[in-house]
């Protein structure tokens, strides 16, 4: 049952700030820039916004009144608000939550806001299995987890290095064409530069990993009916969405490189009546390069262990047969903390609006965007979500 098949929900605008390392700016300042940009671009007055869905922010962690503080700071009065804490799956997940709230009649016009100034300040605090059973055994963060996944993947299927090098270079080219990407990352990169970058947790290299930065992004979500009434010039419909929080809770999957995408990927495609080869462009959440061959396999673009080969065999640039993360992704644009998933989402919407400039994908007829978040105890990332977007009229 695909509850989004009627195309009755519309994204009518997107906005994104420049990504900056240690900007010194606050979440509220970044959020204000997104709101201002959205109202200017769409002509929708802030007064009309009655819903707010946001991600958490490392830089504001510990504020138990987060959405109401944001509403207060931005001058919004709401009938529905929501903060979503499934990590990098939250920005895409919030579009679905906004759609459900609009459908339920709780609100009409939702600001899906993602803002974090994590490289300026980080008040995040880990608890439970992370502090009691991982850190005392030498676990120093997600890069250890993704290094272990990379090693397990390489042992099972062979080294993915050549494909990861191609991804690193292609996405870097996207960042060179994206004036909102972090300036420190807007330098040309060769495959050899990737292969020569230092090991941070062997076999994981520095250039396998995202760099944290500050930034914000957001989309405006409403009903297609209201979008038309208000004369929206452009819109994009979410036509299918699937999410899995805490994949494999009972720990019956032996292969730790398998993820929730093995479930949500095939389902989201089936919901949309599509096969993987019908996907025009792919905007996968990319905190580490290794997740991309894994996702290609789990979603069904290719078989198990064929992800690296798939990347090498296909043209993944903007004019290619399967463009991937055309704006540089988070790997080459920067990861604005918990707002990171919005980097991939907003790039997909920008492409579907036909506003990607020098990196525009021709015939941008649909996009698959994913989010992922959380690190399980010695399995994989906890949360996976996938959405298919299509331009509307």
């Amino acid at each position, binding site marked *: 049952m695909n509850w989004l098949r009627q195309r009755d929900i519309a994204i009518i605008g997107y906005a994104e700030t420049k990504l900056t390392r240690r900007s010194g700016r606050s979440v509220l300042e970044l959020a204000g820039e997104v709101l201002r940009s959205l109202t200017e671009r769409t002509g929708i007055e802030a007064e009309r916004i009655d819903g707010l869905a946001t991600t958490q922010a490392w830089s504001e962690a510990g504020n138990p009144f987060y959405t109401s503080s944001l509403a207060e700071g931005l001058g919004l009065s709401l009938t529905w608000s929501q903060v979503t804490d499934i990590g990098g799956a939250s920005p895409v997940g919030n579009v679905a939550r906004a759609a459900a709230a609009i459908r339920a009649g709780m609100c009409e016009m939702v600001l899906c806001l993602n803002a974090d100034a994590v490289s300026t300040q980080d008040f995040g605090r880990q608890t439970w299995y992370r502090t009691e059973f991982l*850190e005392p*055994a030498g676990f*120093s963060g997600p890069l250890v987890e993704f290094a272990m996944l990379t090693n397990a993947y390489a042992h099972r299927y062979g080294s993915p290095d050549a494909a990861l090098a191609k991804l690193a270079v292609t996405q870097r080219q996207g960042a060179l064409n994206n004036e909102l990407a972090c300036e420190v990352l807007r330098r040309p990169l060769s495959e050899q530069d990737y292969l020569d970058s230092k090991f941070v947790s062997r076999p994981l290299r520095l250039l396998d990993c995202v760099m944290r930065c500050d930034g914000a992004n957001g989309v405006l979500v409403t009903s297609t009916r209201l979008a038309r009434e208000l004369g929206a010039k452009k819109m994009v419909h979410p036509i299918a969405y699937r999410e899995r929080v805490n994949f494999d*809770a009972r720990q019956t999957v032996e292969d730790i490189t398998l993820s929730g995408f093995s479930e949500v990927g095939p389902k989201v495609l089936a919901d949309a009546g599509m096969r993987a080869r019908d996907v025009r462009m792919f905007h996968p959440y990319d905190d580490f390069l290794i997740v991309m061959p894994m996702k290609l396999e789990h979603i069904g673009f290719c078989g198990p262990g064929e992800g690296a080969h798939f990347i090498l065999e296909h043209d993944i640039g903007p004019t290619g047969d399967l463009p991937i993360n055309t704006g540089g992704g988070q790997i080459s644009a920067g990861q604005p903390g918990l707002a990171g998933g919005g980097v991939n989402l907003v790039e997909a919407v920008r492409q579907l609006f036909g506003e990607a400039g020098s990196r525009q994908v021709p015939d941008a007829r649909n996009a698959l965007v994913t989010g992922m978040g959380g690190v399980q105890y010695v399995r994989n990332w906890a949360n996976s979500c996938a959405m298919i977007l299509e331009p509307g009229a």
Partner: protein
Amino acid sequence: MNTPARPAIRMTGLSKPFWDGVAEQRLLLQYDPVARRHQFYPRPVSLYGAMPLEWREASGYGELITFTECRSPAKGFEGLGPYLVGVVHLDEGVKFFTRIVNATFDTITIGQRMHINWDPEGIDQLCRFEPVRD
């Protein structure tokens, strides 16, 4: 036994039997007698549905399913230089994250048999694992 460098563990009531076991150099796992399955880390419920859970001592043997050489140390391990951590699939059927000792990145392999290793006077608050020597 704690050295000042070691950060305090934020232990929960439900994991107390585990840490009491560690103090005696015994690796204790929760066990669901109905599903006949072990689980780790300690949880308030069985992942497999039955209550109550028992505690059982693990054999201390397992198979290495992945590992990495960590070069940005966790708190308390700063003085070590690069060190190995990994996941051991214990013979009891649970995955266990551990520091790996008496091995190097280039000599150890996935699939290797592993055995528990204790060093109560050292920097580790948990057990470690090492390769089983033929």
